[in-house]
């Protein structure tokens, strides 16, 4: 990127700048015409100049040219109009000019705005493009939040400035010079006075503003650092809580804000000081005109008419001048911001764009061995990690890298993935230097997973397939309006120097994952998820999520079959009583009273505390007489709860058992109970009734065992259920879905849809058993992949934080496997898992990676050296050098470091 902003702008927008200058010039014609017109209207038709008699006429729109030698050439003699007609004609002409001027202004402003926004888009894109090409060590020095601030906020003012970059000085300069010349023509001496003052202004003010610019730069830096620190606080919030350093952080932030305040206050002081001086200089000139001009007039050396004309003309000078100085101020400010940002983004050894060129052809195998030739690696401080290591790995070979803690095997694996660049020596793929290969080869033919798996926010599916999205392979097709929109997007992207790739195209390279297309992708994914033991986790996530019915028609349409299948299987296991199904017309004893009343899934207006307060629901309760029963029930529950919990401190873990109320509601219910106990229902206020009745909604007899539900009451609750549904107002009906054994409930989770009932509370092992049965059932009904697909749609959250660390690591390996690369590099990828699972996954992955027809070379940095017997060859590292290279048996027999590692 160009260091000079003006050059940068000119280079990319000179055509548009020239065009807009021409348009501005053209717009001056109607602008000046409209100045002259009021005079013509007043003098002509209104005061009657040239209209001597009532029938006198004057030409309108006569056009003539005064040519030297030839004389006057009449081009158009005009329409002859009477005085009144002339008034209308001129007035409408005035209106016409107003419209034309407005339209010019409109066009110019939109044009400038668009120009600026396009440039801003280009700049932002170029910055992010550079981030994508930064060398790996750069990221140890920059804070993510600071880069984001630069891209988002700091280049923002550029957009506003770019449209005015050349037009504004031309326009204002022109106006100022015109005014100056006019004064000069009237009187040279007065003109010189004005010129001197303007000169002083132009010399002093920008100089004084230089300090403003320094302060502005400081403000920018401190603000950027502030956002970096805030980002760090958010990322490191755990460490802050653990170490009780929140007040240290507060002090740090307060100090930074203090510094920013100081800079900003300084800025204000200077700004208004400069403004004061500027205004003063502008006002001094008329003072000199009055005094010196007046003196000259008294002496008779200047006539009064000239003096008045000069003073009038001077009125037009300070305006453009001030704006010109302001423009210069903005220019310098933007220039500083721009060069600051450019400086941050100008780094040595940025990747050549050619290395990242998009390639939509199927990738070619990396032939030949992967070899390290006299390779040395260092960290960003220059400390050596690996020194002069040479080895080579043949295609198809499985090599374990075993290392002491200072051995450097991890750094080596990073280097193979190009996350660290060699200090000296080389990594070669066949006969080519790994660093010179384009990413379209390395990124597809080498896959890498490590212990700090990075996931992007999005679904599990997005993350799993992330390693396959190299190019828009199946271009999205658009029709009609969408096609027009797309071609507009493409042309805009071109104009702003952005790429045209369509994010909505299908970027997934199914072929390299071993699938033919989106439809049989699961056949490629399933064995990989199985091998890293992640299938069950994802299935669980799927079972616990709710789905969009339109996206999973198969599962939704066969839900009844699943429900029946589940019942049959549980019956066969002699466990038919572990699920109490929802049956319209009967009370479900394992569900809450509230659930039994509603018997359906609801929106927010009918869930939780809102239910008891809902007017329609209250009306239903009243009509069925249940309000009194539930009120009585609520009172009893309150009495029980207070008896049990009143003595316990509010943070006691037993409160988790209390579903009806929270610990801090205990005193409230205690006083309510004292007030209402033994009193008839009528004496409670409506609010108190709601508070008491809502307690009854969470009650489940087998769980709480207060003995409050009689069969008669249950029957009446079921009755109220029907009444509730029949009169349901439309506003509530939209979000209410009754339990229906024949239908899928969109708002409920997949597992709830399958159970269609509640698990009995008296079977502690039931949930686990049901889970096993559900898994088998889905497999047998051929619905497993559908639920898996729901689970793959689970949103992993920021950096995958909604998954466990174990799940993240497994997902990272799965992603690496799915690419089916020629070299699979695994850098202690399972550190978060327990040893037994690590062993299991390692064996699975080795098998899955080399399943026919695949035959990649595998480099695995092991956490547990004992597992190296699963590999063809073992490399032993210590102190950054290679200390052994051979099979597990030979090394175990004769290599000291290896045997020491094994015996740990």
């Amino acid at each position, binding site marked *: 990127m160009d260091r000079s902003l003006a050059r940068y702008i000119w280079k990319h927008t000179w055509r548009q700048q020239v065009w807009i200058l021409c348009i501005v010039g053209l717009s001056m014609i109607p602008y000046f015409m409209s100045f002259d017109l009021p005079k013509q209207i007043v003098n002509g038709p209104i005061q009657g100049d040239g209209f001597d008699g009532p029938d006198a006429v004057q030409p309108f729109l006569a056009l003539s040219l005064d040519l030297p030698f030839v004389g006057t050439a009449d081009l158009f003699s005009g329409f002859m109009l009477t005085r009144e007609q002339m008034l209308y004609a001129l007035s409408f002409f005035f209106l016409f000019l107003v419209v034309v001027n407005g339209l010019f202004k409109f066009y110019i402003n939109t044009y400038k705005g668009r120009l600026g926004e396009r440039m801003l888009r280009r700049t932002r894109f170029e910055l992010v493009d550079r981030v994508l090409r930064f060398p790996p060590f750069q990221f140890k020095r920059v804070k993510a939040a600071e880069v984001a601030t630069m891209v988002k906020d700091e280049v923002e003012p550029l957009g506003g400035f770019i449209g005015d970059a050349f037009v504004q000085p031309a326009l204002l300069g022109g106006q100022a010079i015109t005014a100056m010349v006019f004064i000069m023509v009237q009187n040279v001496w007065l003109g010189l006075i004005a010129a001197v003052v303007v000169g002083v202004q132009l010399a002093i003010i920008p100089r004084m503003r230089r300090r403003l610019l320094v302060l502005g730069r400081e403000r920018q830096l401190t603000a950027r650092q502030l956002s970096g620190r805030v980002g760090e606080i958010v990322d490191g919030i755990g460490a802050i809580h653990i170490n009780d350093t929140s007040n240290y952080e507060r002090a740090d932030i307060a100090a930074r804000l203090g510094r920013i305040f100081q800079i900003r206050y300084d800025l204000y002081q200077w700004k208004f000081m400069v403004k004061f001086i500027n205004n003063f200089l502008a006002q001094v000139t008329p003072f000199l005109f009055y005094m010196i001009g007046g003196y000259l007039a008294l002496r008779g050396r200047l006539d009064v008419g000239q003096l008045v004309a000069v003073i009038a003309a001077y009125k037009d000078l300070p305006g453009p001048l001030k704006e010109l100085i302001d423009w210069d101020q903005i220019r310098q400010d933007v220039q500083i911001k721009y060069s600051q940002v450019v400086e941050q983004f100008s780094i040595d050894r940025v990747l050549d764009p050619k290395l990242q060129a998009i390639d939509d052809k199927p990738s070619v195998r990396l032939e030949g061995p992967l070899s390290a030739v006299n390779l040395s690696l260092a960290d960003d401080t220059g400390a050596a990690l690996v020194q002069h290591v040479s080895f080579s790995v043949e295609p198809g070979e499985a090599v374990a890298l075993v290392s002491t803690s200072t051995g450097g095997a991890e750094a080596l694996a990073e280097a193979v993935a190009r996350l660290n660049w060699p200090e000296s020596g080389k990594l070669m793929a066949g006969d080519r230097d790994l660093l010179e290969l384009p990413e379209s080869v390395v990124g597809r033919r080498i896959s890498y997973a490590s212990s700090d798996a990075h996931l992007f926010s999005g679904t599990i599916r997005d993350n799993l397939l992330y390693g396959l999205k190299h190019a828009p392979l199946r271009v999205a097709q658009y029709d009609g309006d969408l096609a027009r929109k797309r071609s507009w997007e493409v042309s805009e992207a071109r104009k702003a120097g952005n790429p045209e790739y369509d994010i909505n195209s299908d970027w997934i390279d199914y072929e390299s994952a071993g699938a033919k297309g989106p439809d049989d992708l699961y056949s490629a994914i399933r064995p990989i998820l199985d091998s890293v033991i992640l299938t069950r986790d994802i299935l669980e996530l799927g079972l616990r999520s709710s789905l969009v019915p339109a996206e999973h028609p198969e599962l939704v349409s066969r839900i009844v079959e699943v429900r029946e299948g589940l019942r049959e299987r549980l019956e066969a296991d002699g466990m038919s009583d572990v699920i109490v199904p929802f049956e319209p017309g009967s009370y479900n004893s394992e569900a809450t009273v509230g659930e039994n009343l509603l018997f359906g899934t609801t929106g927010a207006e009918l869930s939780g505390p809102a239910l008891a307060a809902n007017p329609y629901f209250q009306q239903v309760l009243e009509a069925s007489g249940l309000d009194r029963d539930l009120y009585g029930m609520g009172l009893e529950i309150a009495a029980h709860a207070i008896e*049990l919990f009143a003595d316990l401190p509010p943070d006691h*873990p037993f409160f988790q*058992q209390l579903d009806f109320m929270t610990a801090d509601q205990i005193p409230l219910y205690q006083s309510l109970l004292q007030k209402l106990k033994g009193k008839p229902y009528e004496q409670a206020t409506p609010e108190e009734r709601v508070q008491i009745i809502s307690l009854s909604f969470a009650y489940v007899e087998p769980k709480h065992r207060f003995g409050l539900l009689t069969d008669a009451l249950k029957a009446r609750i079921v009755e109220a259920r029907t009444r509730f549904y029949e009169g349901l107002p439309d506003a509530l009906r939209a979000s209410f879905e009754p339990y229906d054994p024949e239908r899928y409930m969109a708002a409920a989770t997949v597992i709830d849809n399958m159970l269609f009932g509640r698990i009995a*509370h*008296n079977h*502690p092992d039931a949930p686990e058993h049901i889970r096993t049965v559900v898994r088998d059932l889905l497999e047998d009904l051929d619905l497993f992949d559908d639920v898996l697909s729901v689970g793959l749609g689970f949103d992993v959250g920021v950096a995958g934080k909604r998954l466990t660390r174990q799940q993240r690591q497994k997902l990272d390996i799965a992603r690496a496997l799915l690419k089916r690369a020629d070299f699979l590099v695994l850098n202690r990828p399972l550190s978060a898992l327990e040893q037994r699972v690590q062993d299991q996954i390692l064996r699975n992955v080795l098998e899955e990676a080399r399943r026919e027809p695949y035959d990649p070379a595998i480099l695995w940095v092991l956490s547990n050296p004992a597992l190296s017997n699963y590999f063809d060859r073992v490399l032993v590292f210590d102190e950054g050098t290679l200390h052994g290279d051979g099979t597990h048996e030979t090394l175990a027999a004769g290599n000291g470091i290896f045997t020491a590692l094994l015996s740990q």
Partner: protein
Amino acid sequence: MLNDEVTMLKKIPLFSGVAPSKLKLLAFTSDRVSYGAGQTLFRQGDEGDAAYVILSGTADVLVNAPSGQIKVAELTPNSIVGEIAILCDVSRTATVTASAPLEALRIRKDHFLRLLREFPEMTIEIIRVLANRVSSTTAELIEARSHH
């Protein structure tokens, strides 16, 4: 119901000296569970996470032996089982299987320990019961030794 369970708990020596309000809390924070004949409450070697108070029905206490499982005791209503594993963090020393439809109160480990910590009278009662058991075991041991 909760109140019946409190009456039951009251009959168990371990809890007989504990105030009824505390027993009610214990009952409320426990789960009421039921098992069919032949279903297993827990297995030998499992980690102990709960104790069980038998409310109705019977269960067999089985120990693994080289020749297969040996029944070493039978549990009847009002007995407590599994409390050793939750008191001293050892794995289950026996398998318990319902021999007839069984109703029990499942007291989770953390709840049980919490109650002990908070209500010393309950702890003392438990110590008393355990001490009694130790002394009777010692007596049995002396008896057994003297026969050899």
